[in-house]
C-alpha cells in the first residue's frame, strides 16, 4: 500500500478557522468535541456552584425552590450528555484512527454530523433557561415530569434525543473504524487498550441508547398529546418508564467511565516505563463490564415497586461488576509497581484516577446490596458515590488524557508546574466536596432538596467550600492550555517515548495522519523488552531500521 509522498514542509497546515467548520478530519472533530464539551463543563460547573451555594444554608434562600430544581436538572444533564460522554467521544475521535494506523474514521461525514449535533442539543438545553427550564431531575420520572411544565420538559426531551443520536452515530463510527481500518499487522490483541475500551463502550451505546429514545418519545406523547404510557391517571405505569430509562442510564455510567479506563491503561505504562500488567485480562474485562452493564439496571429501583426476585437478581449481577473492575484496578497497581515512574501531570492524574475511582467503586458495591440500598437510595451517599466515579474517575482520567496527548495534538508541552497545581487543587477539592456527602446521606440527608435539617449544615458547608476550590482549580488548567498552545515548549513526535502508533507521526500529526503507513514494530506496551538499556536508540532510529529491513 502506498501513500502519496509529501514532506511535512509542503503539507498543508491546519488553520484555526477549520475548527469552526463542518470539517471531516477526525483530529479536527476530536478537538471540536473536546473544546465544546469543556465549555459545557464550565457551564455545568457554574450550575454546581450555584447548587452548593444554596446548600450552604439549611433554608431555601439563594434561589427559588423551582429554580433550584432547574439547576440540578440541567447540571446533571449537562455533565452527562454534554461533558463526559462527548469528551470521551472526542478523545476516541482523535485517538482511534491514529492508534490503529488509519487515515481517518470509517465514515468521516457521519462523524462531523455526530459532532455538530452536540452544539445543537446543547444550545437547545441552554435556551430552556430563557424559556422554561426542565425541573424534574435528569431522570425525569413521570408523573412528576408530566406536571412540571410542558415546554421545559419537551425541550429537555428533544435535547437529550439529539445528544443520544449523536452518541449512536459516534458509536457506529468507532466500531466500524476499529473493526475495519486497523493496519493489517494489527490483530485484536495488538490494539492499545483505549481501543478495546471504546469497542466495549460503543457496543453499550448501540444496545441501550435506542431504549432511552423510545422511553423519551413515549414520554413526549404523554406530555403533548395526552397518551397514558406512563401516566397512572390514564392507567399507565410510571415504573415501566423507570425500567426503560435505567436500561439506558445504567450502561450510561459505564459509557462515561470505560473510555477513561482505556485512557488510564494507556497512560500508566508509558510513564511507568513498564508493560501493562495483564493485557488480555484488562482488554476482556472491558467487554465483561459492557455485558454486565446491560443486566444491572434495576439496582436503581430497589425501593420502587419491584418484586423480591428482581431485587435479589439485580443485586447479584451488580455485585458481579466488581470482579472485572477489580481486575483492572489491581492490574493498574501492578503496572506501576516496580516501574520507573515519571510523576508528571499526566501520571499524577492517572494515579489520582485509580485512587478516587476505588472509593466510588467500593461505595458502589455497598449500594448494590439491596437491604443497605433501602437506606441509602436517593440520599447524599449516592450523590457522593457517583461523583467519585464520574468526577474522581472520568474527569480525572480526562484531564490525564489531555496532559498526556496535548503534545501530540498541538506539538507543544503543557506547563508541568501549573499542571501539578491543577492536579493537587482538583484532588483535594474533590475529596473535600464529595467525601462528606457519604456521611450526610447515611445520617439522613436526602438528595435533590433545597431545604434540609439544620443538623446537616456543618458538613454541607465543607462540601460547598470544596466545590469552590474545584471551581478555582479549573483556572490553572485553562491558563495552562491557552499559554501552552502559543508559548509551550515544542514537543517532538514522540515526547514520552511511547510505543503506540499515534506517537509514530509528527506532533501535531499530518492531515492524513502518517507520512506512510506506520509499521507495527512491537506491541503497544512492550516497555523494557526490545530496548536493552545499554543499547538505547530513539524510536525513530529503530523505526527507520525496521523500514530498511522490510525493504521500503
Amino acid at each position, binding site marked *: 500500500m502506498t501513500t502519496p509522498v509529501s514532506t511535512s514542509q509542503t503539507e498543508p497546515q491546519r488553520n484555526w478557522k477549520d475548527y469552526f467548520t463542518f470539517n471531516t478530519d477526525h483530529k479536527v472533530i476530536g478537538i471540536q468535541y473536546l473544546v465544546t464539551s469543556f465549555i459545557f463543563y464550565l457551564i455545568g460547573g457554574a450550575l454546581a456552584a450555584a447548587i452548593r451555594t444554596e446548600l450552604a444554608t439549611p433554608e431555601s434562600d439563594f434561589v427559588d425552590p423551582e429554580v433550584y430544581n432547574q439547576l440540578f436538572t440541567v447540571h446533571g444533564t449537562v455533565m452527562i450528555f454534554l461533558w463526559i460522554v462527548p469528551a470521551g467521544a472526542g478523545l476516541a475521535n482523535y485517538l482511534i484512527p491514529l492508534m490503529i494506523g488509519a487515515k481517518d474514521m470509517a465514515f468521516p461525514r457521519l462523524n462531523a454530523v455526530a459532532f455538530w449535533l452536540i452544539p445543537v442539543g446543547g444550545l437547545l438545553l441552554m435556551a430552556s433557561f430563557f424559556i422554561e427550564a426542565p425541573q424534574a431531575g435528569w431522570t425525569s420520572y413521570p408523573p412528576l415530569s408530566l406536571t412540571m411544565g410542558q415546554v421545559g420538559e419537551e425541550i429537555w426531551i428533544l435535547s437529550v434525543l439529539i445528544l443520544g443520536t449523536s452518541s449512536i452515530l459516534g458509536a457506529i463510527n468507532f466500531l466500524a473504524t476499529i473493526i475495519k481500518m486497523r493496519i493489517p499487522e494489527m490483530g485484536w490483541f495488538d490494539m492499545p487498550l483505549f481501543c478495546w475500551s471504546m469497542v466495549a463502550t460503543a457496543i453499550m451505546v448501540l444496545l441501550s441508547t435506542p431504549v432511552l429514545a423510545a422511553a423519551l418519545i413515549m414520554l413526549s406523547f404523554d406530555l403533548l398529546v395526552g397518551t397514558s404510557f406512563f401516566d397512572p391517571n390514564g392507567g399507565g405505569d410510571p415504573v415501566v418508564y423507570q425500567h426503560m430509562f435505567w436500561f439506558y442510564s445504567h450502561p450510561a455510567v459505564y459509557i462515561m467511565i470505560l473510555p477513561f479506563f482505556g485512557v488510564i491503561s494507556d497512560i500508566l505504562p508509558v510513564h511507568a516505563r513498564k*508493560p501493562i500488567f495483564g493485557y488480555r485480562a484488562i482488554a476482556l474485562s472491558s467487554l465483561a463490564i459492557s455485558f454486565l452493564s446491560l443486566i444491572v439496571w434495576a439496582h436503581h429501583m430497589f425501593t420502587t415497586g419491584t418484586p*423480591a426476585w428482581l431485587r435479589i437478581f439485580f443485586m447479584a449481577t451488580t455485585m458481579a461488576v466488581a470482579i472485572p473492575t477489580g481486575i483492572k484496578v489491581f492490574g493498574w497497581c501492578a503496572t506501576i509497581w516496580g516501574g*520507573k515512574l515519571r510523576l508528571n501531570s499526566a501520571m499524577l492524574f492517572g494515579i489520582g484516577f485509580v485512587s478516587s475511582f476505588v472509593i466510588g467503586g467500593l461505595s458502589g458495591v455497598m449500594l448494590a446490596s439491596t437491604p443497605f440500598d*433501602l437506606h441509602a437510595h436517593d440520599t447524599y451517599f449516592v450523590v457522593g458515590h457517583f461523583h467519585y466515579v464520574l468526577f474522581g474517575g472520568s474527569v480525572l482520567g480526562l484531564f490525564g488524557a489531555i496532559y498526556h496527548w496535548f503534545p501530540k495534538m498541538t506539538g507543544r508541552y503543557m506547563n508541568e508546574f501549573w499542571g501539578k497545581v491543577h492536579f493537587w487543587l482538583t484532588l483535594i477539592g474533590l475529596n473535600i466536596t464529595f467525601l462528606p456527602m457519604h456521611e450526610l446521606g447515611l445520617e439522613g440527608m436526602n438528595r435533590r432538596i433545597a431545604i434540609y435539617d439544620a443538623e446537616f449544615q456543618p458538613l454541607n458547608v465543607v462540601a460547598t467550600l470544596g466545590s469552590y476550590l474545584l471551581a478555582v482549580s479549573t483556572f490553572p488548567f485553562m491558563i495552562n492550555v491557552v499559554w501552552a498552545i502559543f508559548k509551550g515548549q515544542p514537543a517532538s513526535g514522540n515526547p514520552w517515548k511511547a510505543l503506540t502508533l499515534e506517537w509514530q507521526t509528527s506532533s501535531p500529526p499530518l492531515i492524513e495522519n502518517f507520512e506512510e503507513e506506520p509499521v507495527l514494530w512491537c506491541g503497544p506496551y512492550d516497555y*523494557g523488552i526490545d530496548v536493552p538499556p545499554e543499547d538505547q536508540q530513539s524510536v525513530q532510529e529503530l523505526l527507520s531500521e525496521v523500514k530498511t529491513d522490510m525493504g521500503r
Partner: protein
Amino acid sequence: MTTANKITIIVLAILIAIISLWYGQNHGLLPAAVAPEAEAIDGLFDFMMIIATGLFLLIQGLLIYTAIRFRRKPSDDTDGPPIEGNVALEIVWTGIPTVIVLILSIYSFEVYSTIGGLNPKAAKDEGPQPVAEETQSEQGLMASASDYLALGLGESPANQAKNLTPLSIDVNAIQYAFLFTYPDTGVVASELHVPVGQPIQLNISAGDVIHAFWVPQLRLKQDAIPGREAQLSFTPEKPGTYPIICAELCGPYHGAMKTNLIIESQQDYEAWLQQQQVAQSESLDNAVALENSNSLLTPYANQLGVNQQLLDELKAYSQ
C-alpha cells in the same frame, strides 16, 4: 523475597486487618437504630465497611508507596522490568473479589429475608386485583388502583413465628405531606404514631406523583407510587421522635416534605388515638393535616396548595 520483606508484609497485613475491623464497627456514620430491621441492616453495613476499609487501605497504600518508592531517578532514562503479567496473581485478584461479592450477596440475601423482603404477601406480583369502587370516583387526585399487589417488605419471619398481628396503617403521600390513616379507628393524622414493640405494616400509596417514605432510623425506604400499593413492615423498639422524609423528588418543595414518626408506649399511643378520634368526630371539617403539620411545611402550606378541599378529598378517600 527476603525474610525481612515477608515480615514487613505480614505486619502490614495484620495492621490493615486490625484497623479495618476496628473502623468497620466504630465508624459512627449511622444514626440511631430503632428497630430490629435497622440493626440487621447495620450489621450488614458494618461488615461491608470492614471489607471496604481493608481494600481502601490496601490500594491507597499501594499507590502512595509506589509513587514514592518507584519514582524515576533523574539520571535514569531506562525502562522498568518487562513484566507483562502473572497468571497466578491474576487468578488471586479475580478470585478474592469473586469470593467477597458472593459472601456479600448471600449475607445481603439473609438480611433481606430477615427484614421480611421475601414474605410472599409483599414480595410477589399476584396478578390483577379488582379495582376498589371508591378510588374510581376520586378522579384526578387518586389514581385508580393498579394491577399490582403490594410490593416491598412484608412481615418478618421472626414476627410471623411469634404469631403477632401487625398493626396496619395506610400511608398516603401527596405533594407535600404524608397522611396516615388508622383503618381500625378511622383516625387520619399527619404524624405517624406507633406503639413500641408492636409490629407495624404500612400500606403505602401516592396521590399525585411518586414520593418515598423514608425513616433513616429504621434504615427503610419505600417509594409511594400512584396506581400501586407498596408495603413496609417494621417493629419499632426505641421510643422517641424520628423524621419521616420524602426521598423521591416530588416537586419544588420536596425538601420540605417531612413529618415525624413517634414511637411511644402503648398507653401514650392509645391516649393519642382517643384524642384524635374525639377531635375528628367533633369537627370533621378541621384541617387535620394543617394543624398538625410540622413547622417546616406550614410556611409553605399556601404555596403548596395544601388547602381545605384537598384534605377533605383525601379524608373521603382514606375512609
